[in-house]
């Protein structure tokens, strides 16, 4: 019942048709990207969104702006320069010690305040843990629509934002509008949009925004931050190469073969959901609908059948190689390359052959 995924919306609903925009929304102009900064660095999804936002702004004939929130004015200045070079005309900077770490409470308040002050027509965020957390609260506070995890953004003939997103676990796509409310909000997952060309030396306007927050009033405190680089948590979503195994491997001992190939390739490893249930891998290595979405350049799937819930997590891979004993396994319907073979014997041979080949290439170069 909930969520924006009704196949056939009933006609005549209130919000269903575009009306003359209420007077108080008419001032809303420009396309904005709320930039994601965690531990001093800008998430690449924000630059991807600036690239996409640039196209929307040009189509609407308006400005593209970025919003930066943080506690280090110098770092924010550097980030602002990056935003200009990736296409922003204007950057709003909110600098305050209370914005050192991301917290829902502080960021929601500051972003809502900036939006209410400068009134963008379109507001985009990354569909990351941070972006979805923030977007959900900001949209509710502003009582406006929000389309999650969009895969395509466009401006329709009326000038409205058309956001397309997958629904029902990827089996359908739907195009969603927010016609009578402002801003029109959407989130987009990392690496769905292309990284824009960087234009060195491009510059723009900076608007300083004084946040109305006091650390002592903020009830949620960040006690610690355990960086993934200091733990063995898998960085699957960002890995360039991923090797994964499924139930077809037969045993946890055989799953080692996946890890060995991954080690030779300098890749991350993962698996299908049943492996988490069997304790062969930890849940942060599960790939798929209820696990991680990955977008590697190369994905090797060994002994995985390719159920729809697995498929939606790997479809963004540039090249999928499937190894399966069953020539009719569904994975061969969406893999680019396939081989009907026993993964338990092929994996070690692959590991050896890759090691040889890559070492030979190194010696030759």
């Amino acid at each position, binding site marked *: *019942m909930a969520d*924006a*995924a009704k196949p*056939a*919306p*009933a006609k005549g*609903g*209130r919000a*269903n048709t575009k009306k003359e925009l209420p007077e108080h929304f008419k001032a809303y102009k420009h396309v904005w990207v709320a930039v994601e900064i*965690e*531990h001093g660095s800008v998430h690449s999804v924000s630059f991807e969104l600036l690239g996409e936002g640039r196209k929307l702004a040009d189509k609407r004939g308006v400005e593209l702006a970025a919003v930066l929130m943080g506690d280090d004015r110098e770092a924010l200045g550097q980030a602002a320069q990056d935003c200009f070079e990736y296409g922003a005309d204007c950057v709003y900077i909110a600098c305050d010690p209370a914005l050192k770490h*991301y917290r*829902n409470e502080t960021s929601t308040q500051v972003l809502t305040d900036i939006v209410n002050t400068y009134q963008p027509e379109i507001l985009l965020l990354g569909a*990351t*843990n941070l972006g979805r957390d923030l*977007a959900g*609260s900001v*949209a*509710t506070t502003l009582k*406006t629509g*929000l*389309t999650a995890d969009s895969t395509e953004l466009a401006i329709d003939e009326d000038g409205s934002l058309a956001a397309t997103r997958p629904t*029902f*676990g990827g*089996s*359908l*796509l*739907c195009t969603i*509008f*927010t016609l*009578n*409310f402002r801003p029109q909000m959407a989130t987009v997952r990392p690496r769905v949009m292309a990284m824009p060309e960087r234009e060195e030396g491009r510059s723009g306007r900076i608007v300083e925004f004084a946040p109305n927050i006091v650390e002592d009033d903020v*009830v*949620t*405190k960040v*006690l610690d*931050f355990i960086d993934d680089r200091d733990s063995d*948590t898998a960085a699957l979503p960002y890995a*360039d*190469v991923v090797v994964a195994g499924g139930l077809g491997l037969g045993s946890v001992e055989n799953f080692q073969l996946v890890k060995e190939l991954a080690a*030779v390739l300098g890749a991350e490893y993962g698996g299908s959901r049943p492996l988490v*249930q069997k304790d062969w891998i*930890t849940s942060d290595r599960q790939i798929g*609908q209820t696990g991680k979405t990955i977008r590697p*350049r*190369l994905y090797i799937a060994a002994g995985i059948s390719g159920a729809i*819930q697995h498929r939606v997590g790997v479809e963004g891979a540039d*090249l999928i*190689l499937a190894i399966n004993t069953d*020539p009719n396994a569904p994975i061969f*319907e969406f893999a*680019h*390359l*396939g081989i009907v073979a026993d993964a338990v*014997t*092929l994996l*070690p041979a692959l590991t050896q052959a890759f090691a040889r080949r*890559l070492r030979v290439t*190194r010696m030759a*170069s």
Partner: protein
Amino acid sequence: MHIVVCIKQVPDSAQIRVHPVTNTIMRQGVPTIINPYDLFALEEALRLKDRLGATVTALCMGPPTASESLRKALTFGADRAVLLTDRYFAGSDTLATSYALSMALTKIGEEFGTPEIVFTGKQTIDGDTAQVGPGIASRLKLNQLTYISKIVATDLEAGRITVERRAETGTQVLATRLPVLITMLEATNEMRRGTIAQALEAARAEIITWNASDVGIEDLTRCGLRGSPTIVKKVFAPTARSEAAEMIAAEGTMDAKARAVIDAIFARAPGVEDDLTAQALHHYV
């Protein structure tokens, strides 16, 4: 302590079929399940109940048939089940859904005591938006803790809670004041099954059923399609990939097959070889 867990009944996405002509979801005969992330939330609530003693209320908005999911929650160990159902809720997007659920939560607070913790799953598997939890928290002005992988400590006396939250590049350890809304990430531990006695009791238990006016919703334009700022204009099936996988038909030894596989990979994606060489160097010097 009073804990409320929001659960949604969703179609089992493994069984979903799309009508080839109309491009609509064919729900007929598709089995429904409790949204898997909501089960993680329920399990976490039941663990807190085991440790600290608590009353757990399961809340579900949905059609009358969603009472099945609530009964299942009772079987697992929830103490009370509330179904929020009304035809005016049909077509609700996340903003309208969070409105209806927040009204039900307020009513639950009045009737059964204000909850210290409201749990939801991190997202549903049919809508996938992850917006309803933050929406409820914003409406009820609860501290919001999303993507929680672990509850580190709960100090009821001091009204404080400490959690681990998955951020994009690491894990945040956060402390905040109760009451809170927590959205749960996948857990490693299995969901409990519930005893036969619990199942028998759940079969007989009353499901408290409320409609819009029961929870004090007077302005029905805030519900359902009319209360939803987002409008679904078009639904369509993704274009199927035209070609199936290119099959590598290698003969001979496993080594020969392995070499054929590698050749095929590098023929399709020559750039990958340079990347791999660089990465392999990194690991093998």
